């Protein structure tokens, strides 16, 4: 993974501290061309990986990237699935069974076939695989070396102790997409324990890591301890603590930590992207 990953929150009105800013971003990025322009600005500053949700609009962005394959040669996407609100709203409206009926490709309640082999409704791993395939359709023909599971799902399974599903996700994306599985979580220490117990060594884990201790469940100290003593490929997100920490101070903290392979951030303006990139390079050189 590259040192710096570019995120997509700003494109889809995700702002963890201000609904007003969300709305402004939603208006700014209403056209796909505005998203592409910002991605191109990030590329011009040396960022070649875009980590994004499987939001409907990403399908359009992927088409543009596919149609301009020469321009985007070497550009990678790390899909983060699923786009949780799509499913959360569907569950509110249709219930769990209704949502599966709607989103699992083919007719879930009819005869369920996959590669010609029928499976029983008990075969939840096959349902997971079908959902992954459905989410991955939009990325066809694009380099996706790491495929992430969103934190809402990772953490839901973690609490339900459905560790087997997390492990199966890891193996499936390797087998089907020749990709590494990544896990986004708000509970990094707990997740690492579970993945290791499931036989996954050196997993890719993306979690909030910031000087303010924001969304570092169980406390900042245990995160720092795990980074020092455990083996995993850490991606730091929410490094600005939702805007609570001054950018330089925020980046200095993350760069000073051991074992952080990548830093994920998003920004809407070229100046902000440049500023963050320069800060990362500066503090990387210092530590």
């Amino acid at each position, binding site marked *: 993974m590259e040192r710096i990953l570019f995120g997509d929150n700003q494109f889809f009105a995700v702002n*963890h501290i201000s609904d007003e800013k969300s709305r402004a971003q939603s208006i700014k990025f209403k056209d796909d061309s505005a998203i592409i322009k910002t991605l191109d600005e990030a590329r011009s500053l040396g960022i070649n990986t875009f980590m994004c949700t499987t939001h409907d609009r990403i399908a359009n962005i992927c088409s543009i990237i596919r149609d301009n394959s020469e321009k985007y040669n070497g550009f990678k996407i790390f899909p983060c699935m699923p786009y949780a*609100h799509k499913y959360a709203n569907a569950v509110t409206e*249709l219930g769990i069974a209704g949502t599966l009926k709607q989103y699992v490709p083919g007719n879930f309640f009819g005869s369920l076939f996959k590669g010609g082999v029928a499976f029983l409704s*008990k075969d*939840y791993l096959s349902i997971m695989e079908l959902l992954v395939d459905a989410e991955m359709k939009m990325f066809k023909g694009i380099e996706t070396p790491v495929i992430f599971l969103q934190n809402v799902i990772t*953490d839901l399974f*973690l609490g339900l102790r459905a560790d087997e599903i997390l492990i199966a996700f890891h193996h499936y994306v390797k087998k089907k997409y020749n990709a590494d599985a990544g896990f986004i979580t708000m509970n990094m220490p707990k997740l690492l324990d579970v993945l290791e117990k499931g036989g996954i060594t050196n997993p890719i884990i993306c979690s909030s890591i910031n000087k303010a201790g924001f969304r570092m*469940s169980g406390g900042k100290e245990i995160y720092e301890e795990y980074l020092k003593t455990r083996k995993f490929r850490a991606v730091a997100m929410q490094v600005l603590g939702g805007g*609570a920490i001054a950018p330089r101070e925020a980046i200095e903290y993350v760069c000073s930590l051991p074992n952080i392979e990548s830093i994920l951030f998003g920004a809407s303006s070229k100046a902000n992207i440049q500023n963050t990139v320069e800060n990362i390079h500066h503090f990387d050189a210092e530590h």
Partner: protein
Amino acid sequence: MIKVALIGAGKMGISHLSILGAHPDVEVVGVCDTSKMVNDFLSKYGNFNCFTEYQKMVNEVKPDAVVVAVPTKFHYTIIKDLLVNGIHVFAEKPFCLTSAQGNELVELAKNKGLKNQVGYHNKFVGTFSEVKRLVNSGILGKIDHFVGEAYGPVVIKPKQDTWRSDPSEGGGCLLDYASHVIDLINDILSPVTAVKGSLLKSIYSKNVEDSVYSLLELSNNINGILSVNWSDETYRKMSTSITINGSNGKIISDANELKVFLKDPSGQKGYVKGWNLKYITDLTPQVDFYLRGEEYSAQLDYFINVVADKAPNTINTFESAWYTDRAIELIKSSAK
């Protein structure tokens, strides 16, 4: 360890179950759902002890407390049964379909000395708690108006076939979305005691309302507006906010951001004259396990602490939820 069971593993139930499953002071002794698919999943992967009949579960696993997350129409019967059996109850919102039913349960819980809570999670959101603290401090002066709002994209096309589209089962925007806002108004300002007029409008739904607009009067004679719409696609997810105007200033708050304008901060620590901006990041305590938002873990932590006698049973009680049920009734009758 507190022995907890769960009835109803739907959207909220499964989220509660995950949080309880990760809770260091909780032993999840049973899960009850009518869906075979859900039960199969939970017993196969989570090793939960699953049931399809709650009475059987309660008799067998003997929980100290039960989380009830079934459709609202089942609340009264199930909660009553649990209370009669001496079990502490956390129920999802809204509490009951009629205030008479709710009143009976409030009294029953009181008489039996049982702990009770309803899942109005906004009470555990840092910005809203700060609004309540500020209002209680009197810093706004004489309050003359409020606006409570919630918008989001739940029903955005004409297609629905669940209990949420059935008014007799507790479906509709009033019980789902608006109840959160009413409950916040009741808690932060004062309970709704009269409704001057309401519009319950369908946008996509056939049988239930998708939006609620209402003119409310509180027990302290303050008037204000309720404006709620769950068919608003301009929001990515549910967004709840409250605006309060007073003689000394104004508060505008959602779950992320608190904006306070004060003519005279009169020694209110951390606040200055004019606009003040505070973010959820400054106002939220860390939780041990995070799923969907700190508030969901915090409300269950609180319930477990209440059951364990480590905290007083004062937030989101059956009684406070009953005030919200009553306001819902008043809104319904004012719209006729």
